[in-house]
C-alpha cells in the first residue's frame, strides 16, 4: 500500500516537473498564456507528488511496513517516536526524498506568489529552472537513490533501525530539515538569477523580488548549521561542536557565499554595481549545495555523515557540471549588459567595505573548499594519501575571522562613497571604548594569550558598533527603527559576535582529561571536583543505557551513559553536560566499570562560553526575521517616486547623523 502510493507520488512528481519544463518553454516561446497556466498546475502536481511520496514513506515508517526497502533497511519496530519520523532523513534515499519535498514546497510557493505574473518571461524562465532542478531530483528518487524498492520480509523480520547516533537526541529531528530548507531555499534566487540572465533584464528588479527568499534560505541554513553543531556537542561526546568534517564544510560553503551575496547585493541595489559578481555568487551558492551533496553523498570522501556508498555520485557530478556550464555561459553571454555603471571611489566607504567583506568571505570559502577536496586531488594526481583536518582549518580561518570582526566593527558606520578619518574617529569612539572595556574585563577575569584577547576586544568593538547603529535607528524612528534590513542586520551581527567570542574562548581555553574513578572516589580537574557516586541502568524499548553518576562540584548527579542497542554491536555514548553561562562541563563515559568496584573512565571537557554559540545562533535567526519585516524593506520592494524621494533624505540623515 505505502509502496504503491509512494511510487505513484514520485512518478507523479517526476511527470509534473518534466511537464512543467516543457509547458513553460512552449508557453514562453509562443507567448501562449494557456501553457504558462499549465505550468502553474504542474507546480501543484510537483508538490502533490512529493507530499504523497513523503506521506507514504512516513506512514510506512510509522507502521513498520517492511515491504518498502527503505523501511526494511533503516527502520525497526522498536524505533521510538519521533525518531521513526526522523528516520526519513537518516539515510541517503530518504534524505533525497526530503530534499524533493522541500524543493516542491518552494516551487509551489514561488508559483503561488508569482501566479499573476506568470507571463513575465523572467518569472517564466525562473519556473523553468525550478522545474529542471525538480526533474533532476525526482529522477534521483526514481532511479539511483530509490527509497521505494520492494522488499519481501521473511516471517518475523525486523529492521536494524536507524544509526544509533541519530536516535540519541531530539535535535536530530530538526537539524536536517532546517539545513535542507536552507540548501534548497537558495534554488529560488538562483532560478531568478537564471531568469534575469536569459531575459537580459539584469536590472535590480529580480534582486528585489528574491530578497526575502534569500533571507529565508539564509536563516534556515544558519539555524541548520548551528543545530548541527549543537547536536554534535550533545551527542558525540568529544566535547567539540565543529570538526571540519567534509559534510560540515559542505554546509558551510554555501553559507559563506550566501553571506557574501547578502552583503554585496546591497551595493548593487544602491549603486548598480557588482552585477556579475552578485550573479556569480548566487550561482556559486546553488552549485556548492549540489557539489556538497556530491562530495558527501557519493562516498568519495570519508565522513562521519557519509551514508553507505551509493551510485548517485555520477548523476550529481553531471548536474553540478551542468549548473556551472550554464551559469558561466549565461554570464559570459550577457557580459555586455552586465557592465557596471558606477565606480567605487574609496575603500573607506560603505561599498568599499562590502567589497573587502566579499574578498574575505570568498577567501574563506576557497580555503574551506580547497582543504576539503585537497586529499582527493592529491591522491588523484600523485597517489599519495594525505589528510587535511581541523588543525589546518582552524589555523587558516582564525585570521580571516579576526579580519571579519574588524570589518564588522568599522563598516556599519561608514557612509556611502567616502569617509574621512575624522568622521570615523568620531563615530567609532564609543564602540572602541566597548572593545577596550571588553579587553580589560577579559584580562581581569584571567584570560590570557594575544590571539583570543584580540578576538574578545574586536568582538566588543563590533558589538558596540552594532548597538550604536541600533540606538541611532531607534532614536530616529522609535521602536519601529529596530525592524528593516539595516537594523535586522545589526542584530545578526550581535549574534555573530556572540558566536565569535564563544569560538575564541572555547578554542583557546578548552581543557580535557580522562579520569579513572572507582565508586566513591573524587578527582579534581581544572578547579572542579568530580565524584563517582554510582551506576544506574535504564531500560528503554530499543536500548539499554548504563549511566555513570557523577557529581560535579557537589551538584548533580550528572549521568553520562553508554547505550547498547538491540541491533548491532555498536555502543553509543550519551554525554551529559553541565551548562552555565560562563563555562560548560561535558562528561562522557569512555569505559564502564568491568565489574562492580572496578574503575570507570570518564572524559571531562571544560570549555568556557559554549552556551553563547547557541544563543548567538538564535540571535542571528531573530535578526534575520527582523530584517525581513519592517517598512523599509517593503517600501523598497515596490518603489515609487515618492518613496525614493522619502528614502533619500533619510539616507542623508544617516550620513550626517552626528
Amino acid at each position: 500500500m505505502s509502496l504503491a502510493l509512494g511510487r505513484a507520488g514520485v512518478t507523479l512528481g517526476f511527470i509534473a516537473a518534466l511537464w512543467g519544463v516543457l509547458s513553460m518553454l512552449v508557453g514562453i516561446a509562443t507567448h501562449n498564456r494557456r501553457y504558462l497556466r499549465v505550468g502553474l498546475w504542474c507546480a501543484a502536481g510537483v508538490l502533490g507528488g512529493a507530499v504523497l511520496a513523503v506521506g507514504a514513506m512516513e506512514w510506512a515508517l510509522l507502521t513498520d511496513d517492511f515491504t518498502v526497502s527503505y523501511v526494511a533497511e533503516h527502520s525497526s519496530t522498536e524505533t521510538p517516536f519521533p525518531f521513526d519520523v526522523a528516520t526519513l532523513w537518516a539515510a541517503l534515499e530518504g534524505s533525497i526524498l526530503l530534499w524533493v519535498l522541500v524543493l516542491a514546497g518552494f516551487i509551489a510557493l514561488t508559483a503561488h506568489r508569482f501566479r499573476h505574473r506568470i507571463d513575465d518571461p523572467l518569472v517564466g524562465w525562473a519556473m523553468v529552472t525550478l522545474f529542471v532542478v525538480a526533474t533532476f531530483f525526482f529522477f534521483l528518487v526514481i532511479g539511483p537513490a530509490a527509497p521505494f524498492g520492494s522488499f519481501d520480509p521473511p516471517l518475523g523480520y525486523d529492521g536494524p533501525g536507524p544509526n544509533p547516533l541519530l536516535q540519541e537526541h531530539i535535535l536530530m529531528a530538526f537539524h536536517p530539515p532546517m539545513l535542507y530548507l536552507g540548501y534548497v531555499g537558495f534554488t529560488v534566487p538562483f532560478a531568478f538569477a537564471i531568469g534575469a540572465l536569459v531575459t537580459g533584464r539584469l536590472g535590480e528588479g529580480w534582486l528585489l523580488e528574491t530578497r526575502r527568499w534569500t533571507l529565508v534560505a539564509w536563516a534556515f541554513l544558519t539555524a541548520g548549521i548551528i543545530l548541527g553543531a549543537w547536536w554534535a556537542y550533545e551527542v558525540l561526546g568529544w566535547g567539540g561542536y565543529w570538526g571540519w568534517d567534509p559534510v560540515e564544510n559542505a554546509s558551510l560553503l554555501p553559507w559563506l557565499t550566501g553571506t557574501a551575496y547578502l552583503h554585496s547585493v546591497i551595493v548593487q541595489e544602491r549603486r548598480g554595481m557588482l552585477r556579475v559578481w552578485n550573479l556569480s555568487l548566487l550561482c556559486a551558492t546553488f552549485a556548492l549545495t549540489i557539489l556538497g551533496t556530491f562530495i558527501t553523498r557519493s562516498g568519495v570522501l570519508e565522513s562521519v555523515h557519509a551514508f553507505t556508498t551509493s551510485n548517485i555520485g555520477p548523476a550529481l557530478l553531471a548536474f553540478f557540471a551542468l549548473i556551472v556550464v550554464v551559469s558561466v555561459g549565461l554570464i559570459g553571454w550577457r557580459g555586455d549588459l552586465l557592465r557596471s555603471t558606477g565606480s567605487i571611489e574609496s575603500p573607506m566607504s560603505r561599498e568599499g567595505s562590502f567589497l573587502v567583506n566579499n574578498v574575505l568571505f570568498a577567501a574563506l570559502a576557497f580555503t574551506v573548499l580547497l582543504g576539503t577536496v585537497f586529499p582527493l586531488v592529491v591522491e588523484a594526481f600523485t597517489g599519495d594519501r594525505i589528510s587535511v583536518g581541523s588543525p589546518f582549518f582552524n589555523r587558516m580561518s582564525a585570521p580571516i575571522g579576526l579580519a571579519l570582526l574588524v570589518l564588522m566593527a568599522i563598516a556599519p558606520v561608514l557612509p556611502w562613497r567616502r569617509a574621512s578619518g575624522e568622521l570615523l574617529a568620531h563615530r567609532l569612539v564609543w564602540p572602541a571604548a566597548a572593545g577596550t572595556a571588553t579587553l580589560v574585563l577579559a584580562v581581569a577575569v584571567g584570560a590570557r594569550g594575544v590571539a583570543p584577547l584580540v578576538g574578545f576586544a574586536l568582538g566588543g568593538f563590533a558589538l558596540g558598533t552594532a548597538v550604536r547603529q541600533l540606538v541611532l535607528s531607534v532614536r530616529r524612528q522609535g521602536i519601529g527603527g529596530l525592524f528593516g534590513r539595516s537594523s535586522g542586520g545589526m542584530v545578526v551581527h550581535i549574534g555573530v559576535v556572540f558566536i565569535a567570542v564563544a569560538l575564541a574562548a572555547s578554542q583557546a581555553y578548552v581543557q580535557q582529561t580522562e579520569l579513572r574513578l572507582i565508586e566513591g572516589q573524587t578527582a579534581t580537574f581544572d578547579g572542579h571536583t568530580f565524584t563517582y557516586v554510582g551506576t544506574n541502568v535504564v531500560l528503554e524499548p530499543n536500548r539499554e543505557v548504563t549511566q555513570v553518576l557523577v557529581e560535579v562540584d557537589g551538584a548533580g548527579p550528572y549521568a553520562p551513559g553508554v547505550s547498547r542497542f538491540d541491533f548491532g554491536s555498536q555502543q553509543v555514548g550519551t554525554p551529559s553536560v553541565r551548562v552555565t553561562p560562563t563555562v560548560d562541563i561535558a562528561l562522557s563515559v569512555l569505559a564502564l566499570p568491568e565489574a562492580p568496584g572496578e574503575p570507570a573512565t570518564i572524559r571531562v571537557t571544560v570549555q568556557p562560553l559554549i552556551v553563547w554559540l547557541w544563543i548567538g545562533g538564535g540571535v542571528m535567526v531573530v535578526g534575520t526575521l527582523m530584517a525581513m519585516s519592517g517598512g523599509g524593506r517593503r517600501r523598497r520592494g515596490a518603489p515609487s517616486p515618492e518613496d525614493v524621494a522619502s528614502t533619500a533624505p533619510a539616507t542623508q540623515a544617516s550620513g550626517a547623523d552626528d
Partner: protein
Amino acid sequence: MSASRTSTSRPIPLWLPWAIMAAIVVVALAVGSVGINEPPTNAERVQNLTRSIRCPQCAGQSVAESDVSVSREIRRDIAQRVEQGQTDEEIRAYYSSDTVYGPDALLTPPADGVGGLVWVLPVVAIALAAVGLTLAFRRWAASGRRDATDEDRALVAEALDVPDGGTEPGGAGRP
C-alpha cells in the same frame, strides 16, 4: 586608527580618547601575554598531539575525538611517549611513518612537497584579491568619473522603473 587630527570645534580633542584607549589596549595585551611563552605542560602537549593525529578506523576524526578502542590505545601511547621525553616531532614522525599508519595519519598536511600547496594557495588567493582590489580602487579613483553618464542613468531608471537616483547624497561628502 587615523585619529591624529584634532577637531578644533570640540572642547575635548578627538584624538585624546583614542590615545587613552590605545594605551589601555597595549597595557592589557601586555598583561594578558605574560607567561604564555612558558613551555606547554605534558597534558597540553598530549591534548594537542591527539588532536592532530587521525583516528585510523574512523572517518576524518582525530584520536582525541574518537571513542573507538584503537584511538584510546593511541591516546595512551602518546601520553606514554610524552612522559618518556619524546618530542612532538618524533611522535608525529612515528605515527606518520609508512610502517605505522602512513602519512595520512597527520591531520595537518606537511608544509613541503605537494601538501604545501594547501597552505600556500589560500594565501596566494588572498594576496591576488588584495592586489586586484587595490588596482580596481586606483582605476576607479583615476577615472575620476563619479557620476554615471546619461545613458547609464536611463538604463538604471528603466531597470528600476523609477526616476534616477539623483537625490543620492553624493555631492555632500566630496571635497
